[in-house]
């Protein structure tokens, strides 16, 4: 795989994959833990997609000029 293909794979799947791993970590750690650190770990990792979504939605309010995107279409 070329370096360019690798970097674009990371660009596409970096965020989604990290969020998916966090979700799974959260689901499993809540199953393991009766209390304490496991619960906190599950709350934090399961909740993380929420602020990510909220931030992306909010950023959209700032009018982003179209030419900021890399490729002409």
């Amino acid at each position, binding site marked *: 795989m070329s370096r360019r293909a690798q970097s674009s794979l990371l*660009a596409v799947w970096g965020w989604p994959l990290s969020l*998916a791993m966090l979700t799974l970590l959260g689901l499993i750690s*809540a199953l*393991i833990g009766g209390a304490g650190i496991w619960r906190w770990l599950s*709350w934090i990792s399961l*909740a993380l997609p929420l602020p990510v979504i909220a931030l992306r939605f909010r950023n*959209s309010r700032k009018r*982003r000029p179209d030419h900021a995107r890399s490729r002409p279409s």
Partner: protein
Amino acid sequence: MRGGPLRRWRWLHEWSSLACTLFLLILCATGLPLIFADEIEGTPDHAPAPVTASLDQIVVQHGTDPSFVRVASDEGRVYLGERRGGRPLLFDGRTGEPTNAGAAKPPGVVDILLALHGELLAGLLGRLFIAIVGLTALISIISGVVVYAPFASDRPFGDIRKSRGRPLAWLDRHNVAGIAIAAWLTVVAVTGFMNAIEKPLFTLWRAQIGGFLPKIAAGGKAIGPDQALSSARAAAPDMLFETVIFPGPAPGIAGYYLVWGEGTRPLTSRLTAPVAVNAANGAAVGNGALPMPWYLRALDVSRPLHFGDYGGLPLKMIWALLDLVAILVLGSGLYLWAARRRRRRSPDRVGLSDQTHMSEAAE
């Protein structure tokens, strides 16, 4: 990926989503309050007295053709279920006297929501239908993840094109919210499917276990539920037993009491298993609980993972918020479909589908 395969995945995403969106919206809407079922039903303000009443006596006095008795220690009550169905009767755990004047507990709001969420008020048929909805949702999620890649290949994560019309902005929102909760959606869809096929799974298991247990004459019921319960407790002292299923047809097995219990440690507390007790002489079969097949273990794990009620109130609130995001993804998907249809009909305007295909053609 582009061209033919991508078009086929898009087609799959569009139609699998359309097929299940309405039902998924119902499931999300009814599931939202169900996350807080415990809070809605309320917990007793004082610890209930331990259940000491004789199950035998309750069954003899009030049962006609009982299918189960359940010792609900957390409520200080005993439930008695009849084979003809209907709602179980309630008894005081200390005195064994019927509560509710001997009538079944009237269905509360949680029961109604559960009947809607679990079977669309249509019994077993509704359950199987919901299982199909769950599978369709899974197809929709997988195809959605597949079509996400070409969509996201030429822009930063979560870039929302606000200035180029409402449909395009909502396409971006649909994609970022959908991909961010894709793992959670998958888990909830799969575990929901597992819960929906619970009854067929148990039917399968009963058929298997019936061949595994030594054959004994059916109908030789000499012992009562009290003795079945104490036999099970003696056979598996590290488990907590609450439910005694009477010998006979489903949910029971001919010739044996099934005493269902669960583990008592954090890791095992969700794993349920029964001890089979010979109804003629009260002897437990084998050493402790019966071995459980993988699909019933998967079902045990599926329950908490679907309901989100296994990590305290914060987890429930996170579950509720994720549910709201799911509603947003469903609603925006529906909107995008309608907007695309409208634009396809008026070809003089550059439509949403044309724009997304244009960015793809630029690759």
